[in-house]
């Protein structure tokens, strides 16, 4: 069993974070066609903590805002409201963060040799003083991720997808980060290669005491990697729970839907009736609980009132009126 989040010191605390994007029509169109300004709340009042040395995963379907959270945490976007706080690390400086991106074909500069790609953070942040020191460190990093030091002379196109993702990991590790944000690191890879990368990431976490914020749409990958899982739907976290609790007892109807629809290799269910409905446009999210149009348990309260996060005795938090009502009845 994982320790409850409040006892372990948290590496990252995100509170009431919201990010709006301006998606208004151009100024002239607004003027002529009297269109109003239009904002999309990509991330809407999201709070979570990542325990030090642990792994929190954000899961959800495309457009739920999970990648925006990753970009907010790494500072690639600034939050419109709310705060992001990293715990102090060595020398009272905040923990340092690095990111691994989804597409290993787009995230490496095709005109640079692998050596220079990995050496860039060392040179830029002045972590090593001399060229021989940099060369030694790059060779060490390449070995850490399972490549040969001589691979540094090659260009990214000479590597397969899995090897490229290893290069991205080596580059992320170059600045000795404490915290890694991994945005779908294996979804562009084949399953046998995915297993290699997931194993590598688990090993690095054990050896270096890294903390992961892991973003994925694949529930089985998330289950393999994480201690805590937060399920997102239309910019909000609808349920957050320790991994085993979430899989044993999913509480939010959306989590139940997600778990129910994953194809299962070992126990295929061939004759099930899939639930109908789709994710609504984030531009016009439904009022109240955003999941109510697809929810089998929705009533008038769900249409009118947005559910608050309710803490459950087993450490999970759920934003659902039905769950809150059941808890109140039991108390």
């Amino acid at each position: 069993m994982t320790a409850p989040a409040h006892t372990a010191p948290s590496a990252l605390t995100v509170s009431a974070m919201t990010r709006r994007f301006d998606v208004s029509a151009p100024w002239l169109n607004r003027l002529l066609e009297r269109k109003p300004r239009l904002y999309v709340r990509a991330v809407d009042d999201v709070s979570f903590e990542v325990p030090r040395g642990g792994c929190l995963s954000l899961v959800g379907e495309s457009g739920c805002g999970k990648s925006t959270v990753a970009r907010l945490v790494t500072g690639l976007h600034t939050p419109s409201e709310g705060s992001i706080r990293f715990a102090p690390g060595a020398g009272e400086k905040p923990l340092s963060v690095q990111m691994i991106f989804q597409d290993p074909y787009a995230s490496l500069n095709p005109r640079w040799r692998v050596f220079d790609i990995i050496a860039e953070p060392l040179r830029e942040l002045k972590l090593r003083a001399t060229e021989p020191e940099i060369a030694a460190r790059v060779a060490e990093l390449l070995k850490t991720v399972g490549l040969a030091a001589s691979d540094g002379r090659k260009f990214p196109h000479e590597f397969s997808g899995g090897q490229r993702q290893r290069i991205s990991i080596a580059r992320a590790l170059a600045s000795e980060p404490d915290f890694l944000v991994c945005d779908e690191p294996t979804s562009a890879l084949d399953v046998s290669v995915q297993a290699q990368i997931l194993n590598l990431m688990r090993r690095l976490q054990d050896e270096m005491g890294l903390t992961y914020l892991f973003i994925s749409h694949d529930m089985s990958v998330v289950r393999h990697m994480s201690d805590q899982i937060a399920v997102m739907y239309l910019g909000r976290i609808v349920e957050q729970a320790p991994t085993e609790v979430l899989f044993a007892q999913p509480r939010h109807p959306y989590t139940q839907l997600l778990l129910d629809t994953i194809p299962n290799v070992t126990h295929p269910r061939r004759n099930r009736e899939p639930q109908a409905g789709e994710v609504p446009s984030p531009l016009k999210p439904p009022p109240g609980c955003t999941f109510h149009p697809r929810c089998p348990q929705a009533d008038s309260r769900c249409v009118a009132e947005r559910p608050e996060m309710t803490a459950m005795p087993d450490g999970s938090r759920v934003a659902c009126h039905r769950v809150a009502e059941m808890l109140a009845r039991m108390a």
Partner: protein
Amino acid sequence: MTDQPTLDVRNLRVEFPGRHGTVTALDDVSLSVLPGEILGVVGESGAGKSMTGLAVQRLLEPPGHIAGGQVWLNGRRIDSLSEPEMEKIRGREIGAIFQDPLTSLNPLFSVGRQLVETIRLHGDLSRTAAKARAVELLAEVGIPAPADRIEHYPHQFSGGMRQRVVIALALAARPKLVIADEPTTALDVSIQAQITALLRKLCKEHGTAVMLVTHDMGVIAETADRVAVMYAGRLVEIGPVAEVVARPCHPYTRGLMGSIPTLGARVPRLAQIDGAMPRLDAIPQGCAFNPRCPLVQDRCLRERPELRPMGAGHAACWIDAAATEKAA
């Protein structure tokens, strides 16, 4: 119904001549699909699974061409047909569903116009009758309010709805064979389940043979009746899906199954197949899987194994892994 397969591919070989010699993209691939059956074709990127689908439809990008073997559709040989004759088969007898529903639809025409055009091309129907048929097709693939939606353009549909339109297009001429190439890969899981259930339903109702090409073993396990596993342009194992998943015979299939994180028990470390699939211009002698195989023997380095009966299906391996395990 006779036992005649809808699609019968025999010893198919596809070559791409290039400046640095000829690359063999498909090597001695034999498979068949019966009416009303879904055959899953699974493999990693570059294994030749999409290539098989394209070769059957004769949609190979030149200079790629069929260099050997035969393709039979409903008892008629189609790999030797002329291009105009083949043109008549595509769409009418073979329907195609591709991965990305947005690029398979013309953004400038309404969905109804595209459907009517397809229906009229393959059948002798008046414009009004074709339109009625289009509405019927949209209803069949589960699009709500089809009579209104038919006037809409592709961008007005969501990803899952677009894929339903593509399925409706593929089914417009009531083809005997549908080739679905990664039909759910671009979709979210909750939508993916809806689409695979729809494919299964339509296949059973109309007795359509479906060749389902995907990299996702989970989709295969829940949708297909039989599965063909491909590696480096060759077929390594073929058999009933439940058997292949539960008791894979070929070491590659075993490795593939082990590397999938399951929702059941959580393991500290996933089984991994070291290395990567060889490039098609550097396939090792003998068995293509020999550099990565944990059970490799001398013979595997020299001689290429043929498909032979193993377990409940067929596997191309010199070693019967299941039998070896039992003996040990």
